[in-house]
């Protein structure tokens, strides 16, 4: 037993994203530049977003964090490029629900590879690690019609 349960959390794809994160670095010109911290662990994440024609055209992140937070950020950046703020809102809600154990049927469709982070739900202490990047993108593309609709955002702010 023991560490075998860990494989539910640290799937191969997650480890690969953490070791070789996508969109890691910074943008030359960004429309949004957001820094978020996870005060309980000191993790910090900087997210830069460039918008074009109402969609995310480029994105970059940097900072320090654990495997889960780095992998989640890497996967998030892969999935939101080309999406509108409204689409991203839906994704963030789906992600938040998924990692707190309320996985909807369309997570694979909505979240793509990031759906693999569903295993985080079995590790409550690590939910915050997984959601940090998603909180950042939620803020970055903030639309007018959402008023702190997300539990995890309400909780932390």
């Amino acid at each position, binding site marked *: *037993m023991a560490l075998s349960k860990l494989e539910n959390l640290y799937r191969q794809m997650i480890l690969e994203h953490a070791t070789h994160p996508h969109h890691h670095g910074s943008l030359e010109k960004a429309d949004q530049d957001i820094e978020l911290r996870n005060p309980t662990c000191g993790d910090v994440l900087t997210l830069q977003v460039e918008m074009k024609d109402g969609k995310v055209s480029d994105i970059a992140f940097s900072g320090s964090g654990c495997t889960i937070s780095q992998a989640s950020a890497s996967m998030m950046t892969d999935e939101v490029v080309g999406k509108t703020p409204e689409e991203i809102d839906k994704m963030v809600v789906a992600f938040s629900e998924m990692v707190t154990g309320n996985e909807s049927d369309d997570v694979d469709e909505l979240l793509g590879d990031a759906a693999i982070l569903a295993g985080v739900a079995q590790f409550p202490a690590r939910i915050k690690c997984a959601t940090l990047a998603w909180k950042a993108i939620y803020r970055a593309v903030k639309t007018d019609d959402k008023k702190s609709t997300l539990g995890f955002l309400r909780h932390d702010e």
Partner: protein
Amino acid sequence: MGKKMSSYIEDFPILKQKVNDEQLVYLDNAATAQKPRAVVEAIMNYYYHDNANVHRGVHTLAERATKAFEDVRTKVAHFINAPSKDEIIYTKGTTESLNWVAASYGQTHVEAGDEIVISYMEHHSNLVPWQQLAQRTGAKLKYIDLQSDGQLDMDSVRHQITDKTVIVALAHASNVLGVVNPLAEIAKIAHQHGAVLVADGAQSTPHMKIDVQKLGVDFFAFSGHKLMAPTGIGILWGKSELLDDMPPLEFGGEMIDWVQLQETTFKKAPWKFEGGTQNIAGVVGLGAAIDYLEQIGMDNIQKHEHAVIQKVMPELQQIEGLTIYGPQEANKRTGVISFNLDNLHPHDVATALDMEGVAVRAGHHCAQPLMEYLNVPATARASFYLYNTLEDGQRLVEAIKATKEFFKNGTV
């Protein structure tokens, strides 16, 4: 040392459980200690038999509660060898104790241009109150350097404490580096310059005999919950001549002498600081915890922890890629071991250890300036107490090895 140390586990029902299908090994004692039956039962007995408000009733229960409450004050005074029980103030914990010194003594003694001296190893609770005081008064906050092995740099102590220094505030033992600071020596230096020395005893008091007179400090703060008492009760000790001179911070019931329409006089220390109904059950629990520890003997507890550390340190040091912060020699350390494994983030390590049943802390340990000083974002931390055995140390070593293996291969 009388009763075999490992048999004390029997006194802690919480330790006899499985976590993630493994026998629990609790190594997060620097965060909070587990409570022996004797403490839990003392609180239960208090609520079942003696509960009443203190210092304000003539009935029998009020009498009993008051006696219990004040008897613990005497007990605490003996426990840290304070000259008088009237120097023992009940607080919520170390954080409140230190905040009170800053807000009361600090606010009335520190002026613009004065200096407050702390070190890079301080817990936020012995850092932020002084930083706030410095901002409010225009004083300068200065930091004592550390040696490369994490011990306080005594040259820096002598350099930073000057005639402008009014307050020196230092941890007695570090919650990260496992070092004990030579407070007696530093107190002499502080006093030569006319400064007071405030000691944060949160990490030392549970693990060694404290003698505030030998240490020569002026204030000493500690928490009950780290020495097996409940949460929400702590102590501030201060020299009576300093306490007498300090204004109270919370006004209300209990702390007053005489209240008139436009004016109020206050009780003497310690009661003038204890406004409102106190955490009486917490005080009772603290008394039971002190009884429990003294029955075993603080020296025996320290010896036992040293024995465990002596065994576990070399084994940890043999794990390739494991960095231990603070002195590398076991005999220079307390039972706190902070470490990082390869390039793994300590949160990932702590989750893996938890799967093996081993509870450790991961994060910045409320010491962000120290993390920056060490140039790490965070560390994992294992911290031992009297109920931890050599086998617990072995379990930690094995769990770290398994974790290393897991992350190397992405599987086990």
